[in-house]
């Protein structure tokens, strides 16, 4: 007793004296290292790297390893392998406008990009390795922001970059390519009457304008000193004044001119002495591209008609077709949108003749490579670089299990009926078994053949991804392969948050009903709501083949809490006129039945008003949403920036928290609580941030907090009885994390039910702030099947790592002064700075760029949570916050254990025999 007391005292003194030591001790005890063994790399995880929608493309015609360089709308410069489409190197530039690439071209040594607006960066990237060779920037005043008014031209013989600004007059300003030294600029003496439309057809600039109803083509050399402009009226060819001028990508200075109403395009080859019209015309719809090789005279016309992708290769000057290469290919139009040629290269093949490679990008952001004559070599689904919604679904059960399930799916028929049913189904199963042994049975279903069946632990799932261009993907979570893809026409994400809504209406649990998902989005042109329902396992549409136009704008949507007879959950939609709709219409009766307990709320970003609607006044004919409360959370120029509710699939196992004195602090688990963030500017406090916890059924503000000198990025995680959010502190210039925990108190006011309306309780709120040494780009909590496993927070950092932060570290109950009770409770003493140990980075060295979000889903194992990190890259892994307590370790020696057991059994039998023999002998003595 004495000794233990002394020891305790000693420990408590030590705690007080050096919290670091204590923390270290605690860490050792808790064993909170989540590192990976070397042989586990890539075992549970995969990463897919993307580049985004291609903007510029150039074939590598200089270096020995042939590749294609692309720069994209995601501000990425990359080199792709010609044969496989894999990324050889990739450089991610700055976000948004500051990284927007305006121009890309190659010299014999480097890939040159011009990017950004303020200032403009010119960068040279090594052809083979992709590392930065030089980087210089323009002063601000040179640049006029609109992209049409700025043209670029790279002269790879002179190593100069020309900046051409098309204002009221055309100013050309050359720069030395590697040093960035500005050289003397000049004004181009183009005789322009009005604002022309100009294109660069290196090394010339071509402008078209209409003078008195006559289109005139002006051309002038950019590089030549004292160049004279040459004007050419297009009168006999083109009468119409509405003309479009396009430059044809490739080696020769070629432009195409077409007028509205014309069926053909005229081609003009620009020379020093003026432009020369080529003696043939091409079809208006043809996409033109020239061979990238210098001194080559090959023009490729790409014609896309429904299922066929034709290429017509001809001599540029004469228009004579080159027979070898002219061919058509079947285009996978069901999974790829209409293509546009980005670049082409033709090389002589070993067996005489010509082979052309055409890099194309499609309207659905895919990029692919055709080889003529021949085939489609590869396709990259770059739409996956802009994921807007993710769901993970269980796979359906296997055929044999499905047969067993069938036995139970019929309605109750009494004892006799059940018995006969059982006998019948078992004979059927026996017959199936015999047939399958003999190889005569029905062929297995498609899912079964592809191995898409549920496994024992529910770790094998289907990831359903909706992308910003309206393309849906089904991805196998174990291999990362795309199982199905579906292209939706004219679908756009909601501009306010750049999101689409993906609802799981029915999971795979309800055999024989297939699972069903619904995608809610906006029509690209009209802006009205569209819905597409589909089977998430196969990608087949559940209703109509394409999207259904709803005929109204969707203001708000929610999934009904209850299912109908077919286990399908309806979707409740609130349109812009506050009218309520339910989809499918068969779910109407369910919606009416549960109308009394259904509430819907909407937050207006612009006005800052939160409004709640009740369905109570609905009748069986009509669903009606009545506005029951309204809260205005912003004033003046404040903005409402985020509304975060809890995950609807979340389950909370423990209803309280055990304190040091062994009493219970009950959690305030309000399923209707949402966190709302507003931001604003104040002359005294500068940027400030308010967080409100609002009960969306009653409209009461349960808690609010304000932070001075705090600004975005704000990220919120809302789960169980806690809210965690991060912001950038302007005052201390660091990222801070604040956690709030809500408790009911030592007694539960109502042990069986939670109601937001009847006798609402005011929760006790614990709060604490921490410093995270890093920039946060996304946050999400882990989620498990039953909620028994402790929660961790996954934090995507700007450096490309995803940190797994135990909730224990950000617990608001971490005390500053440690009392014995607190120690008994098992909380770590407070330390402001959160550790970022490298073994807690779940993606080890698999950096993920530009993370948009993290999706977590429970697996069949309580210990394991499946994680998909999306952004420019996709990264999938699984985490076990409380370690894998429900599975045997991987290195568990099954063989040894069974050998020992078997050995012991055998030995015990032998010894029994021996012992009985000995006893017999003894008896005879």
């Amino acid at each position, binding site marked *: *007793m004495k000794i*233990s007391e002394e020891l305790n005292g000693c420990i408590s003194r030590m705690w007080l004296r050096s919290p670091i030591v204590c923390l270290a001790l605690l860490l050792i005890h808790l064993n909170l290292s989540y590192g990976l063994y070397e042989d586990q790399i890539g075992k549970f995880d995969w990463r897919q790297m993307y580049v985004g929608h291609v903007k510029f493309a150039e074939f590598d015609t200089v270096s020995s390893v042939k590749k294609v360089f692309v720069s994209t709308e995601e501000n990425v410069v990359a080199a792709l392998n010609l044969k496989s489409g894999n990324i050889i190197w990739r450089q991610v530039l700055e976000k948004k406008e500051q990284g927007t690439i305006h121009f890309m071209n190659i010299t014999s040594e480097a890939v040159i990009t011009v990017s950004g607006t303020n200032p403009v960066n010119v960068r040279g990237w090594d052809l083979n390795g992709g590392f930065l060779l030089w980087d210089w920037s323009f002063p601000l005043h040179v640049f006029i922001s609109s992209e049409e008014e700025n043209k670029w031209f790279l002269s790879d013989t002179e190593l100069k970059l020309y900046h051409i600004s098309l204002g009221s007059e055309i100013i050309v300003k050359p720069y030395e390519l590697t040093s960035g030294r500005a050289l003397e600029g000049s004004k181009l003496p183009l005789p322009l009457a009005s604002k022309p439309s100009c294109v660069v057809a290196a090394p010339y600039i071509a402008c078209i304008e209409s003078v008195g109803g006559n289109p005139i083509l002006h051309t002038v050399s950019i590089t030549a000193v004292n160049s004279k402009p040459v004007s050419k009226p297009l009168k006999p060819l083109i009468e119409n004044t509405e003309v479009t001028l396009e430059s044809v990508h490739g080696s020769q200075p070629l432009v195409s001119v077409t007028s509205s109403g014309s069926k053909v395009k005229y081609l003009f080859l620009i020379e020093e002495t003026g432009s020369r019209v080529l003696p043939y015309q091409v079809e208006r719809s043809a996409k033109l591209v020239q061979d990238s090789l210098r001194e080559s005279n090959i023009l490729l016309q790409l014609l896309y008609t429904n299922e066929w992708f034709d290429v017509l290769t001809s001599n540029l000057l004469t228009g004579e077709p080159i027979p070898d290469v002219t061919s058509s290919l079947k285009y996978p139009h069901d999974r790829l949108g209409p293509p546009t040629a980005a670049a082409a290269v033709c090389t002589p093949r070993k067996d005489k003749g010509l082979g052309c490679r055409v890099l194309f990008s499609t309207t659905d952001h895919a990029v692919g490579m055709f080889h003529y004559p021949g085939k489609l070599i590869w396709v990259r689904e770059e739409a996956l670089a802009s994921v807007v919604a993710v769901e993970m679904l269980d796979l359906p059960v296997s055929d044999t299990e499905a047969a067993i399930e069938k036995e139970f799916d019929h309605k109750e028929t009494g004892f006799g009926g059940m018995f006969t049913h059982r006998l019948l189904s078992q004979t059927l199963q026996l017959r199936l078994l015999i047939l399958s042994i003999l190889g005569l049975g029905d062929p297995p279903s498609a899912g079964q053949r592809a191995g898409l069946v549920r496994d024992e632990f529910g770790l094998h799932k289907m990831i359903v991804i909706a992308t910003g261009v309206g393309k849906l993907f089904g991805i196998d979570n174990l291999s990362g392969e795309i199982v199905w893809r579906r292209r939706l026409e004219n679908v756009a994400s*909601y501009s*306010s*948050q750049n999101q689409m*809504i993906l609802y799981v209406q029915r999971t795979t649990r309800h055999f024989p009903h297939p699972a069903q998902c619904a995608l809610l989005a*906006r029509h690209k042109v009209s802006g009205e709501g569209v819905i597409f329902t589909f089977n998430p396992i196969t990608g087949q549409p559940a209703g109509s083949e394409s999207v259904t136009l709803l005929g109204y*704008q*969707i*203001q*708000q*949507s*929610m*999934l009904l*809490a209850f299912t109908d007879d077919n286990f399908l959950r309806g979707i*409740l939609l*609130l349109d*812009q006129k506050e009218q309520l709709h339910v989809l499918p219409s068969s779910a109407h009766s369910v919606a009416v039945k*549960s109308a009394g*307990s*259904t*509430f*819907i*709320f*909407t*937050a*207006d*970003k612009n006005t800052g008003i939160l409004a709640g609607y009740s369905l109570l006044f609905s009748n069986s004919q009509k669903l009606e949403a009545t506005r029951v409360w309204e809260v205005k959370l912003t004033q003046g120029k404040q903005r*409402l920036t*985020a*509304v975060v*509710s809890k995950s609807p699939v979340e*389950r*909370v*196992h*423990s*209803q*309280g928290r*055990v*304190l040091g004195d*062994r*009493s*219970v602090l009950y959690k305030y*688990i309000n*399923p*209707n609580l*949402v966190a709302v963030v507003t931001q604003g500017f104040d002359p005294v406090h500068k940027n400030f941030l308010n967080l409100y916890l609002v009960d*969306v*059924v009653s409209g009461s503000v349960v808690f609010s907090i304000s932070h001075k000198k705090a600004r975005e990025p704000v990220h919120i995680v809302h789960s169980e009885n806690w809210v965690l959010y991060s912001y950038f502190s302007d005052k201390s210039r660091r990222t801070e994390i604040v956690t709030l925990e809500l408790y009911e108190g030592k007694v*539960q006011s*109502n*042990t*069986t*039910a*939670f*109601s*937001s*309306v*009847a006798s609402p309780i005011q929760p006790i709120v614990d709060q604490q702030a921490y410093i995270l040494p890093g920039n946060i780009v996304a946050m999400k909590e882990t989620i498990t099947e039953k909620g028994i496993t402790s929660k961790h927070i996954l934090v995507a950092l700007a450096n490309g790592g995803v940190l797994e932060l135990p909730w224990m570290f950000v617990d608001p109950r971490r005390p500053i002064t440690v009392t014995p009770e607190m120690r008994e409770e098992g909380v770590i003493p407070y330390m402001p700075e959160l550790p970022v140990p490298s073994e807690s980075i779940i993606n080890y060295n698999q950096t993920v760029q530009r993370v948009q979000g993290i999706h977590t889903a429970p697996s069949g194992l309580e210990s394991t949570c499946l994680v998909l990190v999306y952004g420019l890259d996709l990264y999938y892994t699984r985490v076990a916050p409380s370690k894998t307590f429900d599975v045997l370790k991987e290195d568990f020696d099954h063989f040894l254990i069974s050998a020992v057991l078997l050995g012991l059994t055998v030995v015990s039998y032998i010894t029994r025999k021996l012992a009985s023999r000995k006893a017999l002998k003894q008896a005879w003595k």
Partner: protein
Amino acid sequence: MTATRVPPKRYKWALDSTTRGKPDRSSDLASPPGYNPSAGQVYTEVTRESDPNHLIIKKSWELALGPLKQVPMNLFIMYMAGNSISIFPIMMVGMLIIRPVKALFTMQNTFKMIEGSHAAGQKFVYFLGNIVSVALALYKCHSMGLLPSHSSDWLAFVEPQMRMEYSGGGMSLI
């Protein structure tokens, strides 16, 4: 006790040889100084008690009081063991609880040994003693936190609260 036990036998024997004239003498002669005729009566009482039956009763009482006598010892052990949960205190508490419980279960056998007129009382005292020991052990368990006596011990069985209202929505999509 031993001092009183020996003289009666001697006196008994002496009484045999001098019985005859004793009543007359006592009536005639004055008693010698310090002689107390009632002393003999005391001895006769003792004589009555010292029969084998009395011995059995005494033995039984010893048996019956055994558990109670251990209580101070147990208290001391409990104090020494402390409240921390580690192997030795657990073992001690285990012993404390197992011994009286075992005794309670084998009470029928023990009671066979208890005979005599006080048997009922003795049985009760024996039972009481064991119960006290069990109670002590339980108290120890309680103070060590081994008994599910707090609300926190039943937390795992608390059902989640049922949801009365269902809500949905978010940022306006227009």
